[in-house]
């Protein structure tokens, strides 16, 4: 099995509420020959807050992270968190401007000449690589039978979208997660809200807007007939999960899981190993949906 080393930027959420996203990502990558290298002392990407009210802070945070990746000898960094991905990518685009790069170099205290060589990709893009998809297929122990899934990418997994990048997924009708999970035998449903917003950090500061957005996403996901919502962003995950929890008495409950947890199950890891027992809706009959590949 070929091994590939990439820089891995877990971000703050994957050390907290979204720990199962981190655990399952590491298991999946380990199994298929991807060596994830976490840059030493990475800092927060700034999330929604830094770019909203302090642009200089946001670019300094991004520039330092990209510098740490470059210093570690890697030319690719992958982030499972949509906000980390989007912020790192925006910073890397901005740092192509020599004037901004010079200012950021002064603030970070390092020469950022080489950071433009670092390419920023979301974990979905990394796992969609042809040779990696092949490796997933070779290592598949189980396939899903009669499991209906909707893939919820959220807004930032696929944005900013660079038209010039032929590898980039479509922002309006993304396919990368659909293909990955479809290859595991799941019945991946087409639906309307793949890359709509979950309300983001508004859930933490005046939740009206986040409730409007999550209610709409949940309604559409359930209407599509899905058993499970697969997500690729920790904030989408907690917003949908917490909203379902609040509506527990009234509405249909549907598991919201990280796509890497499903990949992990197919690769032979247990429900507990991929952290599905830690989800708020955790009583789904996963074992019944798996047959030997």
């Amino acid at each position: 099995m070929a091994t590939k080393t990439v820089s891995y930027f877990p971000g703050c959420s994957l050390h907290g509420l979204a720990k199962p996203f981190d655990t399952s990502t590491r298991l999946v990558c380990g199994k298929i020959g991807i060596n994830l290298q976490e840059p030493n002392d990475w800092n927060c990407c700034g999330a929604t807050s830094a770019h909203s009210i302090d642009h200089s802070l946001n670019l300094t945070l991004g520039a330092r992270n990209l510098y740490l990746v470059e210093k570690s000898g890697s030319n690719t960094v992958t982030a499972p968190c949509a906000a980390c991905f989007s912020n790192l990518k925006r910073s890397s685009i901005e740092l192509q401007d020599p004037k901004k790069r010079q200012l950021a170099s002064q603030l970070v205290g390092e020469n950022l000449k080489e950071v433009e060589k670092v390419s920023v990709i979301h974990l979905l893009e990394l796992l969609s690589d042809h040779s990696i998809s092949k490796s997933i297929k070779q290592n598949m122990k189980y396939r899903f039978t009669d499991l209906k899934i909707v893939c919820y990418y959220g807004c930032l997994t696929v944005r900013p979208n660079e038209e010039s990048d032929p590898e980039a997924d479509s922002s309006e009708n993304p396919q990368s997660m659909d293909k990955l999970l479809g290859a595991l035998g799941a019945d991946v449903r087409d639906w309307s809200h793949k890359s709509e917003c979950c309300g983001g950090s508004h859930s933490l500061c005046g939740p009206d807007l986040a409730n409007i957005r999550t209610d709409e996403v949940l309604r559409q996901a359930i209407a599509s007939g899905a058993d499970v919502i697969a997500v690729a962003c920790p904030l989408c995950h907690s917003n949908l999960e917490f909203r379902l929890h609040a509506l527990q008495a009234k509405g249909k409950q549907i598991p919201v899981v990280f796509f890497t947890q499903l990949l992990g199950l197919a690769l032979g890891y247990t429900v507990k190993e991929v952290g599905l027992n830690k989800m708020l809706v955790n009583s789904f009959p996963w074992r019944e949906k798996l047959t030997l590949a």
Partner: protein
Amino acid sequence: MTMVITGNSKLQSEVEDLCDVNIDACIQCGTCTGGCSGIELMEYGPRQIIQLIKLNQRKILLESRAIWMCVSCHICEDRCPAKIKITSLMDTLREMACKDSKTKSNAQIQFHKLYIKQVKSFGRSHESMLTVALSMKGTPLPPLRLMKDLITRMRVDIKPPHRPDKSYRLAIKRLEKGGSIGHGN
């Protein structure tokens, strides 16, 4: 009354100096507003915001609820046929509002400031500490039942906060001494 507009408004020039947007490219098609994730709670959608910039309505804009209801989802920017960087524009307006002494605080400003304070001190955010800090400023704690379910599932971060290297602390120090980089992209 007929209003004759010649040249760019003062506000348009100010915004264009701060961020990499071309306000004149807007054709007022409303695609941005049609896809906006915050529109239900905005008094002006992004299309109107651009028009208000052209009309020099600084006070209206900086005091608006709209700029704080933008969730930075990038959908407007992604769909804009004129390729206007609307997300950067909204960031710029928020930053201008924060620097304006007349701006009253709101739940979003309070949240962003607390979050940034934490990131500056620890290099990373810490969900449990952030929740406690927010509750001390008046944001209600999450429902007890939710907290209990998260704790029993071991989803809550109980580790002490990260201690960043000296290089990080120095970068923040330089930034606080007044280093700044313009908006864009």
